[in-house]
């Protein structure tokens, strides 16, 4: 069992953990700023980015697709912020207008450049699959210490670890101003904080983290992890600091439990087919949210 676990389950688990926690962290601020749906918006917006990347590079490999998707995501975030502020439109509607139009533009581009013959849809070109991130060079726990074996680790692990680090650094550095612009943005301006720029940086960083996570583990985990762990934590605690810590713990638990329920429990129950890990992880975070919504100590609105 040992070598199997290390080779086939350890890497997906670690990558899943990095992705979930990297998405849950900014989620805490996004749900307070009513921008929780940014993950869903970005998952639709990446199509034109991919088609453009394909037209330029002609191949369906990882880096071009990720750069194209990141480009599209940042453009979308810019446009959403622009029409929200200048047109005084509610942020949900602003997201709706932009992501549906960009997706439509993507399909049009797909048809016009008749790349619709190629398997160039989002599901295949960009979205990764958690279970297929394995580490064949591993013989057992010992390989964790052999440099040669470590070279065989899936590259997504390094990428997601860096993303997690970057997001944690951003949140740690800008902790106070972020809390301030979420609580009282006009007051933050009087204290000299560039509130608009900081808000934009938060959303852009989340967009880039989301695209990297799309490539590693697919969109389902990203969209759920940006919202459910922070929302669950919000119903359980009353201080922003503990909310962030709780959201990380919840993301961790949802990933581990979800992965076990998808990959191992069906086999223990005698079935021969396992289930989608991404789907189960996100569903698990939904179960946590449901429990918190029913029994969470701070679920009610105070005033």
């Amino acid at each position, binding site marked *: 069992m040992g070598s199997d676990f290390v080779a086939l389950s350890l890497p997906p688990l670690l990558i899943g953990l990095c992705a979930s926690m990297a998405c849950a962290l900014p989620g805490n601020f996004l*749900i307070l700023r009513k921008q929780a749906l940014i993950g869903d918006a970005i998952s639709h917006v990446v199509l034109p980015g991919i088609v453009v990347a394909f037209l330029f590079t002609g191949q369906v490999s990882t880096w071009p697709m990720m750069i194209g998707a990141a480009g599209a995501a940042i453009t979308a975030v810019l446009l959403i912020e622009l029409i929200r502020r200048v047109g*005084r439109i509610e942020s949900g509607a602003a997201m709706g207008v932009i992501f549906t139009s960009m997706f439509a533009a993507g399909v049009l581009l797909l048809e016009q450049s008749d790349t619709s013959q190629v398997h160039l849809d989002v599901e295949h070109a960009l979205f990764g699959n958690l279970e297929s991130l394995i580490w064949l060079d591993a013989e057992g726990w010992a390989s964790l210490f052999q440099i040669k074996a470590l070279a065989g680790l899936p590259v997504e692990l390094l990428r997601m670890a860096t993303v997690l680090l970057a997001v944690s650094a951003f949140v740690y550095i800008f902790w106070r101003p972020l809390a301030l612009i979420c609580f009282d943005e006009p007051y933050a301006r009087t204290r000299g904080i560039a509130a608009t720029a900081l808000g934009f940086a938060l959303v852009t960083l989340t967009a880039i983290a989301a695209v990297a996570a799309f490539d590693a583990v697919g969109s389902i985990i990203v969209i759920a992890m940006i919202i459910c762990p922070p929302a669950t934590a919000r119903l359980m605690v009353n201080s922003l600091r503990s909310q962030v810590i709780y959201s990380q713990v919840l993301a961790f638990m949802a990933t581990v439990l979800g992965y076990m329920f998808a990959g191992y429990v069906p086999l223990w129950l005698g079935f021969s087919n396992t289930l989608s890990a991404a789907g*189960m992880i996100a569903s698990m975070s939904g179960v946590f949210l449901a429990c918190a919504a029913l029994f969470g100590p701070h679920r009610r609105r105070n005033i």
Partner: protein
Amino acid sequence: MLWSALSLTLGYNATLVTLGATLLGIATGISGTFLYLRKNALISDAISHATLPGLGAAFLLMTGAGLDGRNLIGLLGGSAISAALGLMIVTWLTTKTRLSQDAAIGSVLSVFFAFGVVLLTVIQALPAGRQAGLETFLLGSTAGMLFNDAVLILVLGAITTSILVLFRRPIILVSFDSTYAQTLGISPQKTDYLVLAVALAVTVIGMKIAGLILIVALLIIAPVAARFWSEKSDTIILISAIFGGLSGYLGTAISATAPGLPTGPIIVLCSFVLFLVSFLLAPRRGVLAAARSFWVFQRTVHMTQGLLSIAQNQPIYEPKTKRILQRRGFIRADGVATQAGRALAAKTLLNERRWSFWRNKMQQTGDLDESIVYSLVSIETKLTHDQIESIDRGLSEEQQERV
């Protein structure tokens, strides 16, 4: 070609799809506006994602019971039930917990979709049944609209529009201020469920006919665009219906003129163009109009202020005022007023004095209109010639008293 498409003479499919898309645009434009006014525009996205588990469960149940897993009514029913369940949870989360609306929508959307995917991987392992392409099985394509689809849209559109128009008042009241509505005896829960039920019907059926992204787009873009043109909710609903119908009509026509133009996405892009036009050009709320009127107002304010300062040889503080006056040749580079500047300054000062004299008189008679900023308006345009003469006489009398 475009003309024949527009005049519905381009053959059966084009005509049918044009009519169907236009009707769908109108119906979604109207129901979308109510969603927009209630600030949950993205509810339709949540509904569309929440259908997946229902789809999977229905397929499993029907195959388990030995029926054909792909029977349309069963799948549609399953999707509708799970979407309705999702909606109830969103409403419950929003009212019973401290979560904001978009967090509730986001969590239901993501968790339901995820559970749907888990069910799909269960189905995938079943040997029996024809589960290939189940996920996209329910998603229609606009160009492939059938006759009974168009009829269904007509019926659905008629029902939803009449319900919403009938209950327009209470719904708008609740979305504006639900506590006040309660005092009038309107129950916010009932109106909420009514609007959400309509959104559910439009999304689930619309998804089957026209595809997922088109329905979400039609429900969001037209109302947002319409909002730029009016402040009255009734007019917004009307304009949104027109925008929806127009984008459906134009989109289909364009899509019929050349190859490689998918109908759904073209309709979405047409409504986006309508949004762009409204966003930029709408008279008051439009960005360009607002910017222009702000800029004109700013220029007048700086001009008047600057000239009054010149007239009373006060220093001009703001660099912007100096720039504006200089550009118009009223002051020289070193800030000294030119001949023209002095003349206009005197005129502005006189205008100011006359207005302040007139304001005091209006004050006593009590019909002073507070909203107008008098000093920005030249008095000749507002009062008659002899009224101005009487003011001047009054001013000169005051002058004698003070001297």
